Each structure stands twice: as C-alpha cells, then as structure tokens.
C-alpha cells in the first residue's frame, strides 16, 4: 500500500508539472502581449519595454518558467527598493487587472465553489442514484419512463437556460428566494441556504439526469448477472438482493465518474457561477479569460489540475476498499 501510494503521488507530481509547463508555454507563445494591454492606448515603446522588464517578461522562456516554479515553492520578490514586495509561497503572481495576489484570490473564491459543488453533489447523488435504481428495478413502469424523460430533458437543457428560467420564476415572479449571493454560512445560515438553493438545484439537475441514466443501465446490467440470480435463489429478501448484490457492483463505476465531476466543479462551475453572479473560482476564471489576465488564468488552471489529480488519486484509493479484486491486485 505504501509503495503504491508513493508511485501514485510521483505520477501526480509529474502530471501537474506537465500541466504547468504546457500552460506556461501557451501564454508565452500564443497570447497577446500583456505589457501592451496594461500600457493602454497612449503608449510608447519605451513604456512597454519598461513594463515588460518589471513583469520579467523580457526574460527567455526557461528563465520565466524557473522563476514561476520557484515562486510556487519558495515565493518570489517583485521590484526593488521602496516598491519591493514579497509574494510568499505558493506564489502564483499578481493579477494584471487588480494587482491582487492570485493565491489570495483563489483562497478567497474557493469556499464559494466548494459550497456550490458540495451542495449540488449531495442533491444529484441522492436523486441520480435513487432515481436510477428504482427505474432499473421497475423497468418500463411509469416511474421508469418518468426518470428516462427527466434524464433526457436534464441532459439537453443548457445550464444557463435552466438557471435564468428558474431565477425568473422563483426570484422575480414568485419572490420565494432572494437573488443568489455568496453569503458565508457563519454570517446568516438561513440566507446562506436560500442563496445557494437555486444554484444547487440547477447544477444538480444536469448531473442527476446523467447519473440516473448511468445508474439505471448499470443496475439493469448487474441484475442480469448470475450472482444476483444466486442471491434470489437462496431466498434472500428483496432489499438485500438489491442493496448488497445489485447496487454495490453497480456503483463502483459511478464512484470514478463522481470523483471527476466533483473535482471539476470544485475548480469552478463556470456557467452556474457566472449566471448567478456567485464569486467562485469559475467566475474568476471566466472574468480573467475575458480580460486576458494571465497570472489568474494560470492559477485557476493549476488549481483545477491539482483538484482533478487529487480526485483521481482518491478514487483509485477508494477502489481498493470498494472492490476486493483491486485490493489484491487481481484483474
């Protein structure tokens, strides 16, 4: 187990390093010159050169990369004399737009995305797994048809459309909920819940639709397995047949999927956050992309990569507990 963990962690570090270098390459070669952007319309070549020197953009690629990476682990310093400032590790630089530390920005925004993703995940797992299970067990029933229809509609509906329609109905027309706002839980738990409820539901509908279909087909497949027939032939109660013999094998692939989806959302639900104006990592990403705020984009990308890599690791480790064959290393 220890050897396995060490190997996996090493692999994670390599993946992150590759993502880091690639993102850096994209900005170095393919994006518009940030110095020209900062300088604005009335700009002289001298001024641009000065900005470039200040930002370290006049250095060769490898030198810039080295400074960036060492900033991640050891922090870095900007400027000289009275203007000098120190950016502590993990330093991701400063926003070109607002001059805020990218690390601080991410730390500031992350709780919103985490709250959004976690609430939605609870909802979609409940609805998706239960809906899919009942649908599979009562195949061709009215319930099953309902779940299939929900799946189709939920997958087809774009989030922004669903979000705007719900917001119009529940907030503007009926006034049941306030406009979503990133209220901290500690400030006002009730308002916190009311604010996040709609974003949770919107995000959950899309995923629940997908999960209910996946769980349904997984359970149907498993119910055809010989061991389910054995379980029934030995006279096991129906709920035990379903829970122990049908659901458990059906859910292991769902765990993989969930790990990926959840990690991706922790790194920002771009559309949902933007539509509802929630200041999470997703909104930060979309805002920074709109203004070509490279350090912020770089930070968001690295954070997303880190989350996905960690989720992958967690899923793989959890598999060792879920599936005895994986634990013993047999195929």
């Amino acid at each position, binding site marked *: 187990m220890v050897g396995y963990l060490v190997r996996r962690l090493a692999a994670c570090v390599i993946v992150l390093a590759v993502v880091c270098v690639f993102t850096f390459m994209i900005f170095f070669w393919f994006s518009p010159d940030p110095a020209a952007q900062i300088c604005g319309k009335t700009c002289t070549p001298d001024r641009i050169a000065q900005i470039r020197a200040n930002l370290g953009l006049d250095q060769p690629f490898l030198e810039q990369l080295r400074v960036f990476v060492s900033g991640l682990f050891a922090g870095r310093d900007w400027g000289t004399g009275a203007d000098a400032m120190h950016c502590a590790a993990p330093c991701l630089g400063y926003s070109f737009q607002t001059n805020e530390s990218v690390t601080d920005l991410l730390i500031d925004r992350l709780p919103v995305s985490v709250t959004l993703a976690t609430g939605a995940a609870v909802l979609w797992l409940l609805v998706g797994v239960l809906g899919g299970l009942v649908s599979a067990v009562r*195949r061709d029933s009215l319930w099953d048809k309902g779940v299939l229809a929900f799946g189709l509609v939920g997958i087809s509906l774009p989030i922004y459309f669903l979000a705007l329609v719900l917001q119009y109905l529940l907030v503007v027309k009926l006034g049941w909920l306030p406009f979503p706002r990133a209220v901290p839980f500690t400030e006002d738990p009730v308002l916190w819940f009311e604010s996040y409820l709609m974003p949770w539901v919107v995000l959950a509908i899309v995923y629940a639709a997908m999960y209910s279909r996946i769980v349904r087909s997984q359970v149907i497949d498993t119910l055809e*397995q*010989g*061991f389910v*027939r*054995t*379980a*029934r*032939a*030995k*006279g*096991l*109660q*129906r709920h*035990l047949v379903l829970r*122990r*013999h049908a659901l*458990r*094998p059906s859910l292991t692939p769902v765990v993989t999927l969930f790990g990926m989806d959840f990690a991706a959302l922790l790194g920002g639900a771009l559309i949902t956050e933007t539509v509802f104006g929630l200041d999470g990592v997703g909104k930060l990403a979309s805002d920074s992309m709109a203004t070509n705020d490279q350090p912020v984009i770089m930070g968001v990308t690295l954070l997303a990569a880190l989350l996905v890599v960690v989720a992958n690791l967690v899923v793989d480790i959890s598999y060792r507990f879920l*599936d*005895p*064959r994986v634990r*013993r290393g*047999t195929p």
Partner: protein
Amino acid sequence: MTGQHSPLLRVQDLTVTVGDGATSVVEGLSFDVGPGETLGIVGESGSGKSMTALAIMGLLPRGAAASGSVTFRGAELLGRKESQLRKLRGAEIAMVFQDPLNSLNPYYTVGAQLVEAYRAHRSATRRQAREVAVAALDRVGIRDPRRRADHYPDQFSGGMRQRIMIAMALCLEPSVLLCDEPTTALDVTVQAQILDLLRQLQRENSMAMVFITHDLAVVSQLAERVLVMRGGEEVEQGTTERVFTESRHPYTCQLLDSLPRLEPVDDRQEGLG
C-alpha cells in the same frame, strides 16, 4: 418408480412462454420427483431444460411466464406471492447453476455469501452462521475451510467455486435440489468429483434431485429416471435403464448415437483402404 414415494415435487402440464406469450419454450411438461430420487432431464441446448428449473424456482427472466402446475409437498407454487416463494427458495428448494464463475458475487467473501444464505432462513448470529458455513465448506471438500471462508470467489478455481455453490445450496438441507448443468463448465476430472460429491450428499440427506444436463453419460451415472426433452416438449420419460437400453424413440436414439465410442476405428480403416 414413483410408486415407492409420494412425490415431493410434482410438475404437471408446465408451459413457459416468452415475449407476448406467443412463443412457448416449455410446453406441457409433467414429471414427479420423490425424496431421495434423482430425475435427469436431458436435451440439447435450447430445449427448455433451464427454463423448467427456473419456473419451478419462480425465477424466470423478465418477459417469461409459466402456466400449468408446480406443487411442492402438495402446495401449488405457480402464482404464489414472491414473499412466500422466497421462504421456500434455498430452504426447501435449492438450485446450483451452470456457470460457477458468475454465480458468486465477486464483492463478498465466500464465507459471507454462505452466512447470508443461512441467515436468510434461520435466526442465527453471524458467528453461529459462520460455523455452519465453515462446516458446509468442509463437507464439500474445501481444504482449510476456516481460512478459505475469508477468501473471495476469484481466489478459487472453477471446480472449487462449484463446490462452494453446492455447499451454499446444501447448508440449509433443502428437500429438493435443482442442478442446472452444474458440471458443464468444468473439466472432466473435476466433473467426476462434483458428481461423486452430489451423489454422496444426496444419499446423506435423502434429498430429491433434478439434474439437468445435455450429457447422457452424466445422467446414466446419476439418475434413476430420465426425461428427454426437445424443443420444449417431452420426448420420452422412464427409468434410466429402459431409456438407455430399449428406447425406441428416434430422437433418443440419435442422442445415444451421438455419444463417442471406441469402436468406429475399424470403419475408418476400411474407408481408408
């Protein structure tokens, strides 16, 4: 033969239809099995043998329906509530399936699966049930059963897994055992061991056994009576001895002729000459 015992399991005019009821895979099948007796059901694949067994268990796949009559100790099983059938399954009528590789759940230890079977019908603590499970594994010839009970199905060979299936079927001492091609997926040596085991266990428990197979050689070793099926219908039924030696039915003769023999070598040599 049936005169000796009152039948434990009686199947009368059993018909199994699939789809919209238009296609019947078993039609008008009747047979009895008494305590301690073995009935062999033979026929080629697709002749409705397995469907017959599943209909008795009430475990027909989706879209299949049974009509006619299946009685166990005089009580009708067809059309009975699922909750009532559940109490009979495993405890009174047990079944061993063809594919031992897929019949055990890979997610649980074999011990846990035996314990589960036992506790579905008897009120026992986990510890007591485990003792029963270990004893059952020991009885079917699993060496070091106490340790092996904690192993997962994929740590056993096919033959061992079939032994475990048999242990699971027998741990509640059912009065009827339905075996659906239990040795087909196994190699010949293992097959002989499993058949010996079944014979021995049947003697000990004076259990009624329905043994389904396409293999006439197996039936001749095991069964007192044989039912030959083709296309869902009975071709003939009688004592094993009579069917094997005096059968006049052309289909049974064909089946018997299909058994490999050692004699035809001469014919081939003639052909070559």
